[in-house]
């Protein structure tokens, strides 16, 4: 593991496997997933194994099984996948599995841990019963606590909890209570996301129709600052806009994304980036499976990344981390000096106190975090 806030080694390859199943769809979720019972999970897993085998994964450093919820898969399907990844990726340093607190048992957790999974990311979201109901989550606060204890028992010493704030009906008080309960469980890592009302989700519709009341911008902002304060106070370091970790426990896989390292996405709707091309697989499970079974490419879209676009991507992604753009490394990777390339926005935002230049880094100030997109957009194109 690397030091918190610093950068991982160059060009580490990340592997992401998308499991597009959930027991039920949450009200706020816009990710591609389908109810698990409707599908032949075995056929899909076969297809995923086939796709995985088509790639050279020997240099993969981090792996991440996400979804949907991987824990909704039958036990054997998931363990087979974990085994396959372990055997195909000999240099794996970090292996995360996403799970739903309501879907874990000590036996399952132990099995994953013993096979080589060394990080768990748990979708806690909230400890408030009303908020969990609003989100359409099937678990309650006690389930989260139990799941965390089971994970510890199974031997996991790198645990992350996902939390969501600014949920309809939430208040700074309910949010503080959730933060406190999360902190009390001593996870090594916490992701705190503002609720995003994704168009087309049941929750977004409920808000549009007035059945749910969205939290106003000022409260949302206050809750974000509240999270940063509480988590920092509790010994977590904010290393990205929505991510906090105890020293040494940053998510190496996701850091790879923000460093714009290449990654390989396997499974329906999974995205890959080779550095020169970004591709995305078919989302539809049937189409994906059919492609794999008939030996054709599962890639639905493939877009060549122009060198200048890639440089801009790198700048935008880097700036999401609190470490920011590492000038020297940026030069090495892109061949360009960020101070020259983005001279205009850097000067402007430094003047406005939204960017800071320190030693070898260009990074967002604390004040810029809630309005990061309005700054980052000026790095999105030249």
């Amino acid at each position, binding site marked *: 593991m690397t030091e918190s806030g610093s950068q991982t080694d160059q060009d580490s390859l*990340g592997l*992401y496997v*998308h499991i597009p199943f959930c027991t039920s769809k949450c009200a706020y979720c816009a990710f591609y997933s389908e109810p698990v019972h409707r599908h032949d999970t075995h056929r899909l897993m076969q297809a995923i194994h086939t796709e995985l085998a088509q790639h050279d994964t020997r240099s993969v450093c981090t792996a991440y099984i996400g979804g949907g919820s991987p824990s909704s898969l039958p036990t054997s399907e998931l363990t087979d996948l974990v085994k396959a990844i372990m055997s195909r990726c000999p240099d794996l340093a970090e292996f995360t599995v996403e799970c739903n607190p309501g879907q874990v048992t000590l036996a399952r957790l132990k099995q994953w841990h013993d096979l080589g999974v060394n990080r768990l990311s748990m979708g806690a979201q909230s400890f408030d019963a009303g908020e969990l109901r609003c989100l359409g989550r099937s678990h309650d606060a006690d389930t989260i606590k139990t799941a965390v204890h089971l994970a510890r028992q199974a031997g996991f010493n790198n645990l992350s909890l996902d939390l969501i704030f600014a949920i309809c009906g939430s208040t700074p008080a309910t949010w503080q209570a959730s933060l406190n309960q999360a902190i009390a469980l001593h996870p090594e890592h916490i992701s705190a*996301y*503002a*609720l*995003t009302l994704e168009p087309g989700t049941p929750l977004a519709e409920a808000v549009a129709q007035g059945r749910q009341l969205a939290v106003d*911008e*000022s409260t*949302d*902002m206050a809750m*974000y600052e509240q999270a940063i304060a509480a988590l920092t106070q509790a010994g977590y370091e904010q290393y990205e*806009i*929505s991510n906090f970790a105890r020293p040494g426990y940053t998510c190496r896989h*996701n850091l790879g*994304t*923000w460093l714009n390292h290449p*990654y390989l*996405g396997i499974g329906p*709707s*999974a*995205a*890959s*980036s080779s550095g020169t091309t*970004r591709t*995305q697989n078919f989302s539809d499970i049937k189409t994906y499976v059919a492609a794999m079974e008939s030996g054709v490419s599962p890639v639905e879209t493939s*877009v060549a990344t122009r060198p200048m*676009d890639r440089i*801009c*991507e790198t700048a*935008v*992604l880097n700036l*999401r981390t609190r470490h920011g753009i590492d000038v020297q490394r940026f030069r090495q990777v892109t061949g360009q000096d960020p101070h020259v390339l983005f001279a205009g926005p850097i000067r402007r935002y430094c003047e*406005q106190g*939204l960017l800071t230049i320190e030693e070898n880094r260009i990074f967002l100030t604390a004040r810029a*975090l*809630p*309005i*990061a*997109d*309005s700054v*980052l*957009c*000026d*790095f*999105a*194109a030249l």
Partner: protein
Amino acid sequence: MDTQYIRNFSIVAHIDHGKSTLADRMLEITGTVSARDAKEQLLDSMDLERERGITIKASAVTMNYVYEGHTYMLNLIDTPGHVDFHYEVSRALAACEGALLVVDATQGVEAQTVANAYLAIESGAELMGVINKADLPAAQPDVVGEEIEHILGVRKNECFLISAKTGMGVREVLDSICELMPAPKDRSREKTQALIFDSHCDEYRGVICYVRIFAGKLQLKQKIRFMGAKRTYIITEIGKFCPKMKPTGELGTGEVGYVIANIKQLADVTVGDTITDDAQPADKAMERYAPPMQMVFSDFYPGNNTDYPKLRAAFDKLALNDASFSFVPQNSPALGFGFRCGFLGLLHMEIIQERLERENDIDVIQTAPSVSYEVMARDGKITRIESPTQLPDPGHIEELREPIVRLEIITTTDTIGGIMKLAEDRRCKLMKTDYLSPTRVMMEYRAPLAEIVYDFYDLLKGISHGYATMDYEFKCFEKSNLVKIDFLINGTPVDALSLIVHRDNAEPRGRKLIIKLRRAIPRHQFEIPLQVAIGGKIIARETIKAFRKDVTAKLYGGDVTRKMKVLKKQKEGKKRMKSVGNVQIPQKAFMSILDTSD
């Protein structure tokens, strides 16, 4: 050539009444171009003109036509059809003995037809009435003929019924031009007098002068003198437009063609100047045209200050081919360095603006167009100002005068009420009402230019369901009770947003505009107070609330492509903005102060 076989004429018409189509048919019938070679609407050569279906600059073409055994040289001098370019119409007409007045049989006489016909009559050109599109089922040639007779004094039974599209009746028009239109006077033995009626600048050959020879002749290698400019040149090429430039070695009395004489800049040539022989000059120059009058002014600022030299270069290039466009450096306390530009009218401004964007990659912020005003100071000195920012302190002003125009509106009788209401709202005085037919009426107003220059035409079209047409002509400056409205953004007065309005509606206007401004300026990371002041006194305030949050919560591998697109779009939205202090003001905010809608 014997002048009795020369005919010089223009076609005057309202936009879309078929002027260019008629010209195309004539070019085909006379064999000047083959139908196959003819690009649609050959005379409109600029892309922009072609796209907008209008002719901006005059151009000319020489055609040969055999009538009753004689070959006639027919010189067609094209004219613009838009109100902004009256000046170009009159200078084209000055080179002609006759004009075809084309009216659409389905539309009838329009305001611009009237305005252009008056110009033709004033210039002494013989008018021939042509009713176009007479073959269409909706054509009403009888009614239209009566309108022509009633308004323009051209006899109904002498009008030609044609279809420029099919060519029906066009030969008869050509025959009549030969038979009835006056020939140029034979002054071939007199000292040379050639009128420059247009000019344009060619990248390789320099300035090309469009000339009409009134007396004597011009030939290759001749040493010529520009009588007004008092400069001499040697003719390096001379010829006719056929329709491409074709060297002929000389041009005789009555003929129309071009002269190239190693002239570098358009500014060296004044349209309307007289060319004569340097060794044996004419006694006097021909009567000069009144110079074109710039009626509309607007400031252009580079969105990015470093683009200032680029913007200057772009304007230099535009001015090279448009003598009626002018620009002078301008320094605004709020917006920095830019240029004040003068235009003949709003369409002229839009055309320049479009060419600027099309031909250059510069982010430009433009202020709302303003008219010019006359200021009489306490000491009696009169100055002309071209922007509200130039207005002196009210204490120094004895009298403020605004430009007044004669406005003609032609519309259907059922829309008179709505139009009268609009005109009244805009301080227009009705001078005359004239029924063209039982269903169509022409109204003449005295109107303050400032009130009709911006959105009046659009509103007129809306009220009349597209039927009404208008035209206007500058009359004079007239004393008026005017005040300046100023806006303060975040405490800073933004001079480029100021405007001059009549005192009676200054306050309600100011209150309305500040709300429009609030809507036009995007939210910032801080609260922005807006204030509106009349004569230095704040009359209303508004606040643009700060935005608190603008951040994507989750951004992982699969989201990168989509998110980059969204961010690029967000960046795009910041373009065409000008910073005043910390506040970014978008282009639409500068224009919002002219928005009179509710």
